């Protein structure tokens, strides 16, 4: 009899195998489970910020482990946990075109606006 958890685990293993085939350089699977990235919102309305990562075998375990590592001291009001292999990263060394600041094109930088005094978190 194959029940919920087993099914979920099988499904994850399959996904991980596919991911391994897709990118050989990024190996997130070891005996501690998959790698997940943790994002925490320190106050309502603020953006979620990357806090660190945890190992876990599924979503429920991932949020619990993240809670035990990162939110026991009142660090946040909200939390996202994302499978590390779901994040598409750009390599700064090879993809300079993503990051060139275009300093010679001043009109691209919104430096001519004055911020009203009341605005925080900008």
């Amino acid at each position: 009899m194959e029940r919920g958890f087993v099914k979920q685990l099988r499904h994850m293993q399959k996904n991980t195998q596919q991911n391994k085939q897709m990118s050989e350089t990024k190996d997130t699977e070891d005996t501690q489970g998959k790698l997940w990235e943790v994002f925490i919102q320190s106050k309502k309305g603020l953006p979620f910020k990357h806090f660190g990562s945890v190992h876990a075998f599924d979503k429920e375990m991932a949020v619990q482990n993240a809670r035990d590592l990162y939110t026991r001291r009142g660090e946040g009001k909200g939390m996202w946990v994302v499978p590390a292999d779901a994040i598409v990263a750009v390599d700064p060394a090879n993809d300079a075109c993503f990051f060139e600041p275009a300093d010679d094109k001043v009109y691209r930088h919104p430096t001519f606006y004055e911020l009203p005094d009341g605005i925080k978190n900008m």
Partner: protein
Amino acid sequence: MDHLNLSKFCIRLGDHCLIMAHRQSELCSNGPFLEEDIAQINLGLDLLGQAEALLIYAAKLEGNTRTADDLAYRRSERQFHNFMLTEQPNTDFAFVIVRQYFMSLYLLKTYQVLAEVDDDTLSGIALKALKELSYHERHLSMWILRLGDGTDESQQRIQTAVNELWMFVGELYEEDALDLLAQQASYAPKGEEMKSFLMAQITAKFAEASLTIPDSIYMTTGSKQGIHTEYLGFLLTEMQYLQRAYPDAKW
């Protein structure tokens, strides 16, 4: 309940928490992987906090003749009233999970009742502990499912832990004179009520996790009179070592 009985009541509950906290602390650096190691220690820390609050209050009710530290570190085996279940060793990860899961249900029900009492200190302790315990139950029942419904080996190991620990569950709903006093004052649920709560929770979770409740009807008894399994003596020897070897040592 008069002060002396209420103090005894707090010591019992504090003892459950203290002894479990020590068992959990033994897992430090021995968890199956880093995240779970931290999670298990956090459960222990929560329990230690509850034990401290309860023993401080018990000492105060006694009239401050002893401190909470005296209660924790200067009593011997026969003076402890923790359930035998709480002192059972960390034989393997499944034993830890089953022991803590049963106790998390017991504490949840206990604190739910205590949160309503007309005693600000106790209801305050209970309200804070309830938040912690609802997380304990969530984390532990996840492992009950995961191990019970995992591989053949994990299933066999957790079923073994259930079989070995089952005889200690009877104490969780046993009643003596102090329990009856506490029930009269609405400080504790009736034994029958506790039993039906535990059985309903465990039966439902075990069905989901493909685990079976053992048929055996033998249940241990005695911790309310200070009778324990052989494990408590060894646990106390380690836990109380510093205060026994260097009385009144502080840092």
